[in-house]
């Protein structure tokens, strides 16, 4: 299962122009400063916005093709989407929220147990903490057995400890779900921690150089091994990677 995207869109301050793909069992971390166009990109992937031109395909399904005027609405893309806030329906309980898109009702209880919120199943979203809400949101997104999981800065509004716990959950989840996962964050360490592929985005474009610069200037990853895991088996990065390794050698 592979997602392929190549789109362009004119935005108020810059143009969004990206191409990449994401395979199943891999988490792609989209990282970059606020306002870089990451959320717009995710919304386009989800079908909540339209690109000016381009194509998005998932396996053999064409989701968007501006030349052929094809546009598949969000309902039919079978996605899971976790927003930063407000994903949950205030009028439904925790269990109700997860169940709303679940095909198989048994999934609901197993998910609630797995994410440790079973004891909250009859509470309404406004009566639980932010971390618990995001756990519920993740359950809700997964309950549908989606073909693609999108996470848009899901932990940004949470405290550091909850953030770390949920990051670990996602890391575990990534191995279990046989789907591509795209995770948007402005936090480099989160991107490096979770991502099998890391795509830095600045002003609507993918800028690998920016990432390299940051890593050289700021906090390079603790282990060289980690770095190799990250970029090692993706030959697309080619010459940039050798530059990276060389620089890191120099650093250490």
């Amino acid at each position: 299962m592979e997602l392929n995207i190549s789109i362009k869109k004119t935005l108020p301050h810059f143009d969004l122009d990206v191409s990449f793909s994401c395979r199943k069992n891999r988490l792609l971390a989209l990282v970059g400063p606020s306002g870089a166009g990451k959320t717009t990109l995710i919304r386009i992937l989800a079908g909540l916005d339209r690109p000016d031109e381009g194509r998005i395909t998932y396996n053999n399904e064409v989701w968007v093709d501006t030349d052929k005027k094809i546009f598949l609405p969000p309902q039919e893309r079978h996605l899971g989407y976790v927003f930063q806030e407000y994903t949950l329906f205030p009028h439904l309980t925790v269990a109700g929220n997860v169940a709303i898109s679940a095909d198989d009702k048994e999934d609901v209880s197993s998910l609630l147990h797995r994410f440790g919120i079973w004891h909250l199943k009859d509470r309404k979203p406004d009566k639980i903490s932010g971390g618990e809400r995001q756990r519920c949101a993740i359950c809700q997104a997964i309950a549908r057995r989606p073909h693609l999981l999108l996470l848009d800065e899901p932990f940004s509004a949470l405290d550091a400890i909850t953030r770390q716990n949920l990051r670990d959950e996602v890391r575990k989840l990534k191995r279990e779900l046989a789907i591509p996962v795209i995770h948007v964050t402005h936090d480099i360490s989160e991107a490096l921690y979770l991502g099998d592929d890391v795509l830095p985005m600045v002003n609507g474009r993918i800028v690998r150089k920016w990432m390299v610069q940051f890593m050289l200037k700021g906090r390079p990853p603790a282990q060289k091994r980690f770095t190799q895991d990250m970029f090692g088996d993706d030959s697309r990065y080619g010459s940039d990677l050798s530059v990276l390794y060389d620089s890191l050698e120099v650093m250490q």
Partner: protein
Amino acid sequence: MDMIPLWLSLKLAFVTTVVLVIVAAPLTYLLVYIRFAGKSFFEALLTLPMVLPPTVLGFYLLLVMTPQGNIGRFWEAVTGSPLIFTFTGIVVASLVYSLPFAIQPMKAAFEKIDRRLLESAYVLGLSPMATFFRVIIPNTLNGLAASAILVFIHTLGEFGVILMVGGSIPGETKVASIAIYEAVEALRYRDAAMMCLVLVPISYIFLLLINRLTRRQIYGA
């Protein structure tokens, strides 16, 4: 005291409220979520009954509801009986008269819903119609209730429009407001006072209800 006009008023208010809430909800959805050409004109048209003097509105309704008028003619062709001077006729008049009062609270409630909630529903696989019934409506119940109550008391007090198209037929179109008016004209002040005595508390109770509901909205569900 003749209870029939009071009963008629309550019946009219009830029927109008039920029909109007059902009719106004999709109209409000259209106004809030759908973009289309001429939307502002359409919206102003829907608000018109609120600003027109009731007798003006009643006059125009009379013109279209008589057997010569467009709507009256259509009605007779379809149902075989006239529209004017019937209970159904004053229901139709009340629907027009109270339409903006149904839409305004609903519109405020619909607009308050975070768009992300709707987007979340779409991504989870809910069609726009399913989203309307399973997300929008459950989260705007206060607004819908405020709408219903407003329409109810507005219809209870309706006079000018019903005067024009009702014909004051006892048991059919002679509602309480008309009966009170005629009692005053005929100098039967006691009868008028008795009917008012019943209507005022009813209206007051409903106003209290509205206050409760809107307060809850402000302080959060």
